[in-house]
């Protein structure tokens, strides 16, 4: 595939992620922080997020499996996950965390379990999206091209 075509594909793909709510404006902020002196910034932050979220999701699974569920602890973990997902612009993960916290507040275990599944699902989905995004970027770089900046005209 020609360079121009891959670049076009990246632009369209990125736009679709915004349209479908996977990403929000905060992701654009991250992209603004990337430049020649920090060419992998977005990749690094996103990677950190997934390392972090994996740990948190494991802790949450264990915590919800206890005979006496510690809702304070759960809320604390979800709060952390909500924060970091918000910082990278992973909107659907963030929203799933907000719903999760609501069930925590009323100490509804079933609700929490359902939400945990949803958060896991959203993390999985957005991870795949990012992987595709980064792959397209790599293809562009490998072809000697530059990654087009995201401009949202809608």
């Amino acid at each position, binding site marked *: 595939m020609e360079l121009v075509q891959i670049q076009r594909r990246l632009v369209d793909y990125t736009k679709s992620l915004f349209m479908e709510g996977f990403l929000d404006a*905060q992701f654009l*902020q*991250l992209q*603004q*922080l990337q430049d020649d002196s*920090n060419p992998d*910034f977005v990749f*690094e*932050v996103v990677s*950190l*997020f997934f390392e*972090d979220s994996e740990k948190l999701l494991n802790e949450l699974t264990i915590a919800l499996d206890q005979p006496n569920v510690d809702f304070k602890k759960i809320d*604390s973990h979800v*709060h*952390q996950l*909500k*924060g*970091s997902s*918000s*910082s*990278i*612009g992973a909107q659907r993960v963030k929203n799933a965390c907000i719903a999760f916290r609501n069930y925590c507040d009323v100490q509804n275990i079933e609700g929490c379990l359902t939400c945990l599944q949803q958060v896991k699902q959203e993390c999985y989905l957005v991870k795949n999206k990012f992987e595709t995004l980064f792959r397209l970027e790599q293809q562009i770089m490998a072809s000697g091209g530059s990654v087009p900046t995201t401009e949202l005209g809608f």
Partner: protein
Amino acid sequence: MRTTEKIDGYDLSTSDTEEVHVLAVDDSLVDRKVIERLLRISSCKVTAVDSGRRALQYLGLDEEIQKKETNGFDGLKVDLIITDYCMPGMTGYELLKKVKESSAFREIPVVIMSSENVIARIDRCLEKGAEDFIVKPVKLSDVKRIIDYTTTELREGEQREGARARRRGINKRKQREGDDDLSSSPPSTLSSSTSSSPSSSIQSATAPLSPSTLDSPTRRLKMTSSE
């Protein structure tokens, strides 16, 4: 950002001194990375720590770790503290309190970051002397705004010092102890009464040089010349 000023014959060519040095405090690794980058891109020097406790240690305020009374720590002088509110152990609010209750560091502006946009929380922080409150996620425009007025404050502070020195040329310390209350008064009257705690008067009695006089290299130069 690099300018040369001449005050009283001293060549104040600014290399490190013009760059704002920010102490960033956040327990989240992701947020720390982002805030660090936001600050660096805004031409700041950054020291990022993961807890209020470590922030106090860096400043030399931790009771358990003995540091010299004067600002003689190995690190750079801190011009601004930006801290997350919700942190395990010591919250950003508690860190704010400790900083504002310390005579050595209460003049350092403290900015609080929080994902929760709660009016009561914001008010509490402002009343305790917080400079500003940013709702997360933090944007580049938020950081630029804060750095802009921190730089202006610092520059104005140095210019005020220079003007005073030229006008009076008296013992700077005596002047400053009188002016301090005026120049560093927090926004609300509530906090100005709480900031004059017994501990701050004890500290200025024992320290030959009140640490607040050493908060800029300009002042340091003038102190040594008057002795």
